[in-house]
């Protein structure tokens, strides 16, 4: 383990906020002994925009575009989660077709988020080519989602009690063409990356998180499941269509960077399965509930909703006071817990490992800073 370094032998290095591998504006204050890390302190808040405060100053519908700008990589899932929270508070019923479309879009969004992570992570490790392959696949998803939602990154597709619009044939055809193409690509990634000796050497046994440590730091999502804890909101507290679908939660026991990588790649396969099932049973009918008031007003009370985004457990806590404006809307974001473990994990590793570990946690800074 790491040697206790003499103070005069160590120096401070600011990794970020302007650094190619911190993915956004994270600053890691590292104390280094040569290339070995003695101490790490993450410094946050560079992209604080006050979303939660904004929520207290506008109606529920006016706040609709905000959640998807917190985690811009799983925007649709945030959007879905926000609508879910309000629907539960108001007791709104969502038509079956809308539920199916929501799940299809959310899982597409999960795949695109994992693909972007895949590319960026490989770039952190010095391989540039997989990045462009992943972006090629992601481009297909963005085009398909663009057909349904009209936007490519920050989607406000869901509405209270349904979705904005029904989808056309081009959307369904696009997905039918995309699924086999993505499956073929996963085989390519397996040979190009997963079985590459250099990649395995860089990630295996690096940044090992034990299940106890993972629980203690409130890790969620793929990072937790790579440590052998099979916890996923989609199974633990199912919402929407998920109880009716047949899919697995990939779990790996090692807790290192390689396992976090593998869990995400396996999740892409499971998401494809979910989309296939939802497509097969997609019913007709309306996509919006009738009788939703113009100004949605949840009865006074405290409400909590959990949601599984691409990064883990998103919790939305709503304190409603019976007006058109939330009294308090608090988001529990997955990246915060996943990042918080770094000071425990990094001491004793090398600078190159820092990048590998930080990348494997898949943090999105605007989600943490809000």
């Amino acid at each position: 383990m790491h040697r206790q370094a003499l103070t005069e032998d160590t120096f401070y290095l600011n990794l970020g906020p302007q650094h190619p591998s911190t993915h956004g504006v994270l600053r890691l204050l590292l104390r280094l002994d040569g290339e070995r890390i003695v101490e790490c302190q993450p410094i946050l808040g560079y992209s604080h925009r006050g979303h939660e405060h904004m929520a207290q100053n506008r109606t529920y519908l006016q706040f609709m575009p905000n959640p998807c700008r917190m985690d811009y990589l799983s925007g649709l899932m945030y959007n879905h989660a926000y609508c879910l929270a309000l629907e539960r508070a108001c007791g709104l019923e969502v038509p079956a077709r809308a539920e199916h479309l929501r799940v299809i879009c959310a899982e597409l969004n999960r795949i695109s988020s994992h693909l972007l992570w895949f590319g960026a992570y490989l770039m952190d490790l010095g391989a540039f080519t997989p990045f462009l392959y992943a972006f090629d696949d992601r481009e297909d998803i963005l085009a398909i989602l663009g057909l349904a939602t009209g936007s490519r990154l920050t989607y406000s597709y869901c509405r209270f009690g349904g979705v904005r619009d029904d989808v056309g044939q081009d959307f369904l055809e696009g997905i039918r063409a995309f699924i086999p193409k993505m499956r073929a690509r996963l085989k390519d990634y397996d040979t190009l990356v997963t079985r590459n000796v250099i990649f395995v050497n860089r990630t295996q046994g690096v940044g090992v998180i034990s299940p106890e440590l993972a629980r203690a730091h409130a890790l969620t999502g793929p990072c937790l499941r790579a440590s052998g804890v099979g916890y996923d909101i989609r199974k633990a507290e199912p919402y929407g269509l998920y109880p009716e679908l047949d899919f697995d939660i990939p779990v790996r026991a090692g807790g290192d960077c390689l396992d976090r990588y593998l869990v995400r790649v396996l999740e892409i396969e499971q998401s494809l399965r979910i989309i296939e099932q939802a497509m097969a049973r997609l019913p007709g009918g309306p996509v919006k509930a009738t009788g939703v008031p113009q100004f949605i007003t949840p009865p006074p009370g405290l409400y909590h909703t959990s949601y599984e985004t691409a990064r883990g457990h998103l919790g939305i806590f709503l304190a409603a006071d019976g007006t058109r404006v939330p009294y308090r809307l608090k988001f529990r974001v997955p990246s915060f817990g996943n990042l918080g473990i770094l000071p425990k994990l990094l001491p004793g590793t090398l600078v190159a490992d820092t990048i590998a570990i930080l990348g494997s946690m898949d943090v999105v800074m605007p989600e943490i800073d809000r």
Partner: protein
Amino acid sequence: MAWLSNIPATVWEGLRAFLGPLALTMIVGLLLTLGWVQVNALFLVWLERKVAGHIQLRIGPKEVGPFGLLQTLVDGVKLLGKELITPAPVSWPLFVLSPILVFAPVLVSFVVIPFGPGTQIRDLNVGLMLIFAFGGLGVLAILMGGWASNNKYALLGAIRSVAQNVAYEIPLLLSAMSVVIMAGSLSFQAIVQAQEGLWYVFCQPVAALLYLVGATAETNRAPFDIPEAESELVAGFHTEYSGMRFALFFLAEYTNMFIVASVATALFFGGWRGPFWPGPWWFLLKVYLLIFVVIWVRWTFPRLRFDQLMNFAWKYMIPIAVLNLMVTAVVLKIVR
């Protein structure tokens, strides 16, 4: 009009008489080398971007000139026009000297590269030694640049570079030595002559492989591009360099690639030997094929970690190279 066509010959004879044959060869050689270095770097950067593009489902540069061939030229002009930024806390004599020092040894190496039978600036009897000696100077300049930049990322990059170059020069030299034992000479002409029947890559496959891996590391190319690992160290030792100073580092890197590929061609791939075409064409073809392989590797593999890289050199490459050298020596002793 006969007198007109005689002018070049007359000028040549005059210069020859005035300067003496040796000095004239040197001057012409220097001019040709300088020109070649530029053209080679322009071509290689274009090749790298084009190959990378096609590997990555893109098409690479295509706007400037046919197939984007002039793209690098335009980039070079842009770099020439850039301001040379010298940050306040640098130690400026070293900072300014470093890009020049990294580039100068690369030029010297051209003296002994055997493009064809007799097509060589000077056939020194210690040609191989000269290339390795001057190749070793480059790392000094990198250390100077990284140290003088007064930047922690640059310093880390420079330290990595020194450790890496020291480690990888040993297997490089040892693998070249196995060939030298077989050819019985350090002169490139003699080494290529000795590959009359059989290329050394077939009698020395281990040495050839060691040389290629070592050369990739020596030129700081991926997967051994640790000193300038952009995802870790921003830009490594040349973080603080801009404009033409940065371009000189770049130029040196691409020229170095050409030189190590030339040495590999001469040592293992029969130099200028080949049917139908004159020697220099074969030589250049082999060199660029080798460089193509190096580019291919770069755009396929992730980067090694620093300690893994050092382990690889000290624990595997050096013992294998020593063993290979010993086996070569013993077998030759028995056979001859």
